């Protein structure tokens, strides 16, 4: 832990105090009044002693931080700061510990937090916590801890900086998939072509028939068998989750994005995170995540908490790009996918995958052309988007 004496500075009160001292000294010298000289000495003493005491207050004082490794955007979290006084004698009064978080790759001002320790006895440790939330996803670096004090009189301030590097990954905010989305996934008949495509991407192959159970949708009822058996019978499908699906996240933004453009990017990321969260909750199924961003990221894993964690880490750090790499990325991805594995594209912009001219690389290969035809594309402007996804609460 690198520790450097940052600096000692005089506070505003110290400047005023110096002014009073200077006045006293001037009056004493000009008027030759010895008692004013005494008063000057009485004023000078505390200032000089403050200079020594304020340095001594931070001697052998070491801070430490306990912070979570990951949080979700908008989620409230706490960080515990502890101060240890390593001296054998003499406690420290009025210590401030300032912690800052800086988002990587961002020019936004640091988010600061300050804890206050009124008294840390010699040889002991005291703790304090600060709490808050970060609205934007990203990778945040904890800046060096700054311990400062102005004890005993607030005339001088000294600060020590402790390099205690740590990182906080703020995952995208997780919304919720609405019941409309789930019904869409389970109902073939009610689906629009797009929805059917979407459902098809998630549903699996016909597996067999079983008795109806509460919760089964009407779309799954096999009427012929039910009539024959005189009891409701439903189709049972091999869960596509065993086949998994591919999620393509297209984070495109204009060259000079407006705040609305950037907001769309966040919405798309949040959607992707929510979708993956739902998928990983379902159990073991292969997942492919392809993020088309400034730094393209690919993730291949089986749906699990670890995979979700990894995916969220990826989504936390990605930044949008103005390069249009969608066609190429899709061509590469679809070429790798198994035929049974469905795909979903979420994008910040309206995309017509059936545009042969734009996505010629996809349409020139029959297999890819078929896949493209049944790959749904969702954007924040879609009705389906609004019906099926509720963003994270503010």
């Amino acid at each position, binding site marked *: 832990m690198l520790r450097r004496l940052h600096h000692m500075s005089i506070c505003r009160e110290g400047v005023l105090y110096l002014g009073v001292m200077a006045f006293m000294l001037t009056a004493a010298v000009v008027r*030759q009044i010895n008692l004013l000289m005494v008063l000057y*000495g009485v004023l000078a003493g505390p200032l000089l002693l403050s200079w020594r005491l304020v340095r001594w207050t931070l001697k052998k004082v070491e801070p430490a931080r306990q912070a979570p490794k990951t949080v979700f955007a908008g989620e409230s979290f706490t960080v515990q700061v502890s101060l240890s006084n390593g001296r054998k004698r003499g406690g420290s009064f009025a210590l401030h510990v300032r912690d800052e978080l800086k988002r990587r790759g961002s020019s936004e001002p640091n*988010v600061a937090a300050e804890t206050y320790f009124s008294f840390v006895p010699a040889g002991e440790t005291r703790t304090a916590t600060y709490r808050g939330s970060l*609205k934007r996803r990203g990778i945040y670096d904890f800046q060096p801890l700054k311990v400062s004090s102005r004890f005993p009189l607030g005339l001088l301030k000294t600060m020590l900086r402790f390099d205690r590097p740590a990182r906080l990954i703020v995952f995208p905010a997780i919304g919720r998939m609405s019941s409309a989305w789930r019904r869409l996934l389970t109902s073939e008949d009610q689906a629009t072509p797009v929805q059917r495509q979407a459902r098809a991407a998630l549903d699996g192959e016909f597996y067999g028939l079983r008795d109806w159970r509460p919760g089964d949708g009407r779309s799954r009822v096999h009427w012929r068998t039910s009539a024959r058996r005189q009891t409701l019978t439903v189709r049972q499908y091999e869960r596509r989750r065993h086949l998994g699906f591919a999620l393509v996240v297209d984070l495109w933004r204009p060259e000079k994005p407006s705040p609305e453009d950037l907001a769309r990017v966040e919405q798309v990321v949040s959607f992707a995170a929510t979708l993956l969260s739902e998928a990983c909750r379902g159990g073991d199924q292969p997942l492919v995540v392809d993020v088309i961003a400034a730094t393209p990221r690919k993730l291949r894993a089986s749906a699990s908490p670890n995979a979700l964690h990894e995916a969220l880490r990826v989504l936390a750090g990605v930044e949008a790009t103005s390069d249009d790499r969608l066609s190429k990325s899709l061509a590469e991805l679809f070429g790798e996918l198994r035929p049974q594995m469905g795909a979903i594209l979420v994008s910040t912009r309206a995309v017509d995958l059936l545009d042969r001219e734009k996505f010629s690389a996809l349409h020139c290969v029959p297999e890819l052309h078929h896949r493209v035809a049944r790959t749904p594309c969702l954007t924040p402007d879609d009705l389906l988007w609004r019906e099926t996804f509720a963003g994270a609460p503010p």
Partner: protein
Amino acid sequence: MNVERSLRITLGLLSCLGTLMLAVGEGSVGLAAAAIVVGVIAYVACDVFHFALTGFWSNLATLVVLLLAAWQANAMAAEERILAMADLMAYLQFVLLFRAKTARNLWLIALVSFLQVAVASALNTGLGFAVALLIYLFTGVLFLGQFFLYRERRRFDDAAEAARRALADGRNAFIGGAQDEKEGRRSSREFSRRMTGMVVGTVALAAFFFVAVPRLGQSAWMTNQIVGGRTVGFSEQINLTRSGQIAEDPDIVMRVHFKNPETGAPFNPAGELYMRGTAVTRYGEGRWQRPHSNLISRDGPPQLTRLATGRGVVEQHVTIEPLSSSTIFSCYPAFRAGETSELDYHRWLLQLNRSERSKSQRYTYTVLTPAFHLEGEQAVVLPGEQAKIIPIIDDNATADRRRTGAEPSIPAELLKPFVGVASVPALAGLQAVALDVVRNIPPDDVYQRAKALEDHLRNSGGYSYSLTPEERPSDIDPLEDFVVNRRRGHCEFFAGALAMMLRSVDIPARIVLGYRGGEWNAVGNFYQFRQLHAHSWVEVYLTPMQVPLNKLATPDLRRFANENGAWLQLDGTTSNTSADLATTTSTWYQLRQTVDYLQFLWNNYVLGMDALRQRDEVYKPLLNNVVATFKRETNRDTWKARVAEIYETVVPYKLQNSNLPTAVLSAALIVLALLLVFLVVRRSGAPAGGSAAIEKRSAASSPTVDFYVRLEAVLGRRRLVRTADQTQSEFIQAACGELAELPETRAVAILPRKIVEAFYRVRFGKRALEGTQQAEIEQALLKLDAVLNGSPAKA
């Protein structure tokens, strides 16, 4: 620790104390009482019952006090209007005490209190002010410390509240927290100790600054602290008809160092000292005044070369405070210390004067005197005692008489009012007493008659000393009344009575005004005279035939006396022996002496600190001390003596001359020296042990392991720092994971692992790297640094 409550109490004390100090300086009992009453009421009303003046009422109250102060200022003289300003500050403080105790108001109250103390410092100069200032200092430092803690907590709470609002607005923010553990008495105790330490340190630093800051010119304040009474002090005339209680003024008048001029060694006189000032000869209507005489020499007292031998001469080095009179004091006879003198000297009055311009300043002068019997040769006096006979040194008179053959004449006014008359009705009783005392002594034995009269007043027991004025009838001469009726009075009555009694029996006499006794300061080797040591005694003129030459120590003095006669010093004032004993041994007296000494220090080294004193009392002694210490410590003989002393102390006497202790001592010194060398070398980091150990250590600290230090430096620039609980391997593993995450660093993510493996081989396997391996490591470091930091690794 309930900071807020303690803060309010301390502030209340501070404000009361500041106003009290101001009130004492002004002499205003009302203001002092108001300070206490208002302070108590304000605390009860505001801090207990949470009352606070609203804006309107406080503004109204402020307006009222402004008008009150303006009215007061209007009624005062121009030079006193500063007191009205000071009172205004006190009134404003009263108003502020009833307002809500915000941080700003607390600070204002403290500031106003301090300003009152600043004004009080211009009015108060007594030792009591110093004590009050100490108490104020302690209270002030305590207040500042508590105020600081209060403001820090408030500042933190305000920041937390702002963060809470930011969070509610949906912005990124963190609400800071205060420490979880609550502290109680422990922190209060430590805080109090810390503040007390600050006060002690402040006093020491204040003393240092006060002494060290150079003065330009003189101090402007040297006030007389006794109010409303007549003071005992030197005056160039005596008025026996004045009434009023006499208070003893402890103000310092002068300090006298006596030295042997040849050796410079201090000389400590024996017996009581008489520092002579001037003489008064004319008496009338209860007043003694100086004669009309112009026998002033602008060249100062006579030169020492007038003495055939310099033996027995003592140097008087006198520092006299500013006085209203230009008269200065000395033991007589007095001689000039150098070739020239800036003093005026009255040959007949035996009076030395400084210039009128210098009488308002502290003045230092040196005068020589043979007045002390150093060797006691041919004199029936005690060695070291001041002579009671002062030969008259007047060359002009001597030359005149040699030319004319006349005898020394007796000035007529030394016998008035008995000149030409046998008796004076107004002093008939006095004369009768005098005649009764000397009736059995021959008239030509002037010395014995004078001594008898002195003894009558001093030792008969019929007269007592008192500073309490007596109610004396206005139709009787005060001296007559003193001798015949009310035989109680102070030294002026004793001296006046003795002089008159001497004159009534045809012995020429005059009164001398000066200082008697003084206080011996064993630390500084000086005598210190205060105003209360002012004294009057009598001088009798003895013709050359009447001088008892055996009471003069040296031939020179006898020669002078033989030429022009001499003055015989008589002191008829009785000493209050029993009272003296009681006072010198009582605890109260000891305490008073201590307070007097502190007062002396305060008057001289605080109030009276000026450029001259600073130079003489601070800079010069300090410099001399430093130089003397340096010379002493660098003197070979000093060290030889010390070693010899240690040798004699350590080694038994019987062995001191044998070779054994020398051998043992030599051996011990050699061992000590070797140990010292070993410690120094070890501390400087040179390796101990043989060459193998050196090589081994070199391997560990050689550049082959330095590469790991460089690796950590490279990674550190990417904010990858090893924590205390991580091994090198764990740290590198974590770092590699970090690097593998990012595409731009993925390619070099493996390099740190290779470097740390090499480190472990060297550090713990104790195997040095070969040349190719070192080159590989170097390349890896360079590549890593280029990728991570964009710059080559520095060796």
